[in-house]
């Protein structure tokens, strides 16, 4: 069956720059002197350390247990010794530090004995627990814990596997699909087994013919190998950024538009990155926890390409391996459309790190000076959400935040299309981030203020109540006193009268 494709509004077609890094096969990375493994690597929680400084650990051994329902486990990426457990700067725009286990590799790469789990025999609960215990989170960048998504009790019609890889420069999913298609297809089948989807579609942008061919062959090989009767379909989709955004891909492949604030599962769709499907297969069929990922290193480097990187490898180790060229003025993590400038090269690679780009002024020229908006509407034509970015910009600039809300500011996915096309070179996404944070801060203030008001009113009410009670008590006492006085008076008067009576 050939799936009918749908169109999403807007989008852009930037220069893909995929060839730089997609030609060479995935390469291994020599062990770095130390690995910094953060405890929190999923978007819904982290891990609780179960090792202490000085412990010897094996490759693939759990070193942090999933904490809470949304947490995911972390594992030793190689064999070695736990050197310290301390706060380290993370690969995040803020550069904030976070708790990490620092491992010194012993160079022997001794594996823990793997314990595969046959999806056909294991119960659903066992499988979900294993996915959580293997530390599997969404590898497309959002790092949403997979056991939560696939464990959702919704009726799922369609399972989507995202191999679109729409950001320029990034090719890690492309190489993964070319080289490890069988594992991706096997992982997709396990995910389908878990959510009971009626069909499985793998969306791949049509600028990756080799990946499409490899995946099609793997899907063909897997035909009839299980009793589900559901085949994995490979669907080439038009190359148009941001076709790889989850909601855009769901739109393209199913026609369904998931509104902001809603989740795909409620519409009968679940979407996983190809890397996540691959990791699920490795975890269950091979008993290997998530300890590495494919990272594209590209841009202004001597040896661009894709590398199998142990989680916790410091970024500078990879740039050293690829040979930074002179003229590099900053380093990006992620793609050029949505990635961020790394504040520190000491930060480690984590489960969501898909790409490192060495940026130079030649490859990434600084934007020309900002000019006034002339409402030409190019941004509105490019917006995949159908927003009017220029209207948001005018509202944000004037701090008319109610208007910004009315124009659906919080539906903005910050994909960057509007800023990419703007002829006045306005950094629109920056304005939207600013407006969002201002509105959030204002809402927080409002909340705090209304709480303070509630507290104040409660206090006033309490004081008044106490005053009233006190008054009532006083009044009662006074009445009592008066009564007793009156009684006393009466007695005195009676006594006096008695005394005055002539004897």
């Amino acid at each position, binding site marked *: 069956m050939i799936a*009918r494709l*749908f169109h999403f*509004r807007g989008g852009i077609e*930037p*220069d893909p720059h995929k060839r730089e890094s997609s030609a060479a096969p995935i390469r291994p990375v020599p062990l770095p002197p130390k690995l910094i493994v953060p405890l929190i690597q999923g978007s819904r929680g982290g891990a609780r350390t179960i090792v202490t400084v000085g412990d010897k650990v094996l490759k693939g051994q759990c070193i942090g247990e999933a904490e809470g329902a949304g947490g995911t486990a972390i594992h030793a990426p190689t064999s070695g010794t736990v050197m310290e457990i301390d706060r380290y700067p993370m690969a995040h*725009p803020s550069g904030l530090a976070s708790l990490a286990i620092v491992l010194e590799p012993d160079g022997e790469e001794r594996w823990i004995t793997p314990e595969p789990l046959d999806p056909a025999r294991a119960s659903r609960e066992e499988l979900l627990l294993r996915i959580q215990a293997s530390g599997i989170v969404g590898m497309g960048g959002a790092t949403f814990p997979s056991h939560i998504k696939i464990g959702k009790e919704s009726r799922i019609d369609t399972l989507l596997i995202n191999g679109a890889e729409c950001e*320029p420069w990034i090719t890690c999913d492309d190489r993964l699909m070319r080289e490890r298609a069988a594992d991706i297809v096997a992982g997709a089948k396990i995910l389908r087994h878990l959510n009971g989807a009626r069909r499985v579609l793998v969306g791949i942008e049509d600028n990756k013919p080799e990946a499409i061919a490899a995946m099609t062959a793997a899907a063909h090989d897997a035909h009839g190998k299980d009793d589900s009767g559901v085949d994995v379909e490979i669907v080439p989709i038009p190359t148009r950024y941001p076709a790889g955004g989850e*909601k855009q891909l769901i*739109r393209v492949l*199913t*026609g*369904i*538009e*998931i*509104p*902001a604030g*809603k989740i795909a599962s409620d519409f009968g769709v679940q979407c996983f990155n190809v890397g996540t499907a691959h990791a699920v297969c490795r975890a269950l069929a091979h008993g290997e926890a998530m300890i590495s990922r494919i990272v594209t290193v590209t841009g202004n480097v001597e040896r661009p390409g894709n590398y199998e990187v142990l989680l916790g490898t410091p970024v500078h180790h990879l740039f050293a391996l690829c040979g930074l060229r002179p003229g590099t003025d*900053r380093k*990006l993590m*992620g793609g*050029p*459309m*949505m*990635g*961020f*400038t790394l504040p520190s090269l000491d930060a480690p690679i984590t489960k969501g790190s898909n790409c490192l780009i060495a*940026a130079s002024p030649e490859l*990434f020229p*600084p934007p020309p000076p900002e*000019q*006034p*908006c*002339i*409402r*030409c*509407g*190019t941004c*509105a034509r490019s917006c995949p*959400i*159908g*927003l*009017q970015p*220029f*209207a948001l910009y005018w509202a944000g600039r004037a701090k008319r935040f109610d208007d910004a809300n*009315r*124009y659906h500011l919080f*539906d903005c996915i*910050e994909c*960057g299309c509007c*800023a*990419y*096309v*703007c*002829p*006045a*070179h306005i*950094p629109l*996404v*920056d304005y939207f*981030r600013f407006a969002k944070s201002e509105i959030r801060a204002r809402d927080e203030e409002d909340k705090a203020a209304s709480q303070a008001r509630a507290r104040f009113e409660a206090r006033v009410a309490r004081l008044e109540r106490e005053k009233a009670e006190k008054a009532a008590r006083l009044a009662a006492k006074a009445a009592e006193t008066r009564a007793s006085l009156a009684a006393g008076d009466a007695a005195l008067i009676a006594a006096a009268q008695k005394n005055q009576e002539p004897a």
Partner: protein
Amino acid sequence: MSSPHIRQPASVQRIMLTVLLALLPGIAVYIWQIGAAILVNIAIASATALATEAFILKLRKRPLAITLGDGSALVTAWLIALALPCIVPWWLTVLAVLAAIAGAKHLYGGIGQNPFNPAMIAYCSMIVAYPAIMSQWPAPGHTDFAAQFHLILGGSRDIDGITGATALDAMRTGLRNHANVDAILASGTFGFAGGRGWEWLAVGYLLGGGILLARRIIDWRLPLGFIAGLGGTAALFWLISPERFPSPLFHLASGGAMLAAFFIVTDPVTAASTPRGKLIFAAGVGILAWIVRSFGAYPEGIAFGVLLMNICVPWIDRHTQPAIFGQQQETRP
């Protein structure tokens, strides 16, 4: 620096230069049919616009190079020159440009901030202030440059033989005298569609509009809305009473209709900005233009239509916000 880290090569300057380029076919026809005096007017308007823009930017302590180089002042200047009769005295062109650049544009905060179309402000203020001079249009075919240049320099306005009634003027006068449309059209003023000679100008602007549409500089909804508004209203009344109302073709080929359709109502700063809003805005201009032409005190009403609809833009935009992603659910396949 934050994302996105790449940008498409595009600039406001490139947009404005494309608009100027798209005006060239119209200008070429103008020179051929009406006379080369238009070039003098364009030069006067351009020089005044750049000087005024530079002076005011300096007063407002704004960077000169970026704004002066964006080409927007030149676009305004050229449009004013094309909207005014090309034999107006030089000082009238200067005043018109001053009204547009200093008044309509910079008093509101400069490029992007003005609610009213600067060229139309210029046209309206001049037609109100100097109705006589503004009604003297050169007759097509009399491309006597020396005579036209003499008028521009402010020479005595001995205009017999140089000027002639425009199509809209002749139609209006004829109808006021209770002649019927066909009889009026039979006079020598008219050609195959509008005013003889002038109608070729409409073709020139149409050609330029095609360039702008192809380059996606303008949104098709604006010219379409305007043509539908003006042509549709004209068609309705023409069908009811063809003796009293000229045809839609006449309306579209006469006066500034084609210039307005592709270069005036398409000004992104002052037009409505939502897809439906653009259609409503432009149709409104067309309808108002027809009303002024048919019943108003002036033969041409587009400029008034534009300014009136400019006032409505915030309201139109507010009530025509398009549905966003997820608001319109398509049925599942």
